């Protein structure tokens, strides 16, 4: 089964995303900030990461830059999922190595579509 790490400091968002992703066949791990996510990735690199931008301890963009520098860190498909919805943020995410980008609010169709778009 493919694995997806859901990284968001909101427990509600993690829960919503988990339900959607489980429905389309992913096994889910959760992290509440970038630091926790990095620890997860070092233990077991997921196939996909759904990543919030604004989080305490370590933001999504900081996490992404660190992830892409890790051994095997190029492997996971990273999809940002954030309220940041301007071109500056989108371009910054793409330059840091994001594969896709979801602007909140999202629905199940958008998540499923973006993962396929990103190659999964």
């Amino acid at each position, binding site marked *: 089964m493919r694995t997806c790490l859901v990284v968001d400091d909101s427990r509600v968002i993690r829960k919503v995303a988990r339900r959607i992703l489980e429905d389309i066949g992913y096994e889910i791990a959760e992290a509440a900030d970038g630091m926790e996510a990095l620890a997860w990735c070092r233990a077991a690199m997921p196939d996909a990461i759904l990543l919030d931008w604004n989080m305490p301890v370590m933001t999504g963009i900081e996490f992404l830059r660190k992830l892409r520098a890790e051994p095997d860190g190029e492997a996971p498909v990273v999809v940002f999922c954030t309220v940041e919805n301007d071109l500056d943020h989108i371009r910054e995410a*793409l330059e840091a190595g994001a594969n896709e980008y979801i602007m909140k609010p999202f629905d199940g169709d958008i998540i499923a579509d973006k993962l396929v778009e990103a190659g999964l």
Partner: protein
Amino acid sequence: MTPTDIAQVVSLCRARAGLKVAPDKTYLIESRLAPVARREGYDSISDLLAAVRARRDDPLVWSVVEAMAAGESAFFRDRAPFREFRDEIVPQLKRARGGAPIRVWSAACGAGQEVYSLAMLVGEMLESDPDLRIDLAASDLSRLALERAQGGVYNQFEVQRGLPIRLLAQHFEKEGEQWRLASDVRARVKWRRINLIAGLRQIGRFDVVLCRYVLSCMTEDAQRKVIDDLACIVPEDGYLVLGVKEQLGSIAHAFEPVVGRPGLYRRNPAFAAAAA
């Protein structure tokens, strides 16, 4: 809405646009016509339809039919047809046309996502093949839809339906909470109002016609008429693209499916004699 109102909508749509409206889908009819009633200054849908009956006012009739004809769309809907367009259809037609433009028509274009997906794709193809000549045309029954499509403005949900983020960043600018497609992409498309059942044989040759998720909303008579007309404007080496889940079935005589390519049809050579 009364049964008479519903019967009137069903019959108007069939007569004017060959549109098949299911009389039991009251909620659909109401959700489409409520905005029309508001826009035209009527208190209710029944008032709007009474005015249509009383005045036989053509623009008012069309505003009802056009609202019922509207469909949902998405950028790069179904994905595969766009890959086939780029990798199979265009290379083959380019060889066959020897420098003459390949003419492509997006029929019933709605808010324009399909034809703009093609326009962005053609832009990428031109980067590796500057000699490529592709003319893009788009049509819809609805004047409102055409106006919207030409503006190229979409909300946040719409730009997240099928559009890769890379293309959003490359071709769109944010205006408030909306996203506007760049003018160079919009300028690749020519627009026309076309009623598919009003006769298509005068509109000229089209090498590729995309008519996706349209025929399945039409009556069988209307479908047959559209297909027969398309057979006269699509050359023998041209293509008709339907929705991947759409099948022509018994009305397919003018076109035949391309094996392994759901929704893709070629002219049926056996039909050429009959059309001529």
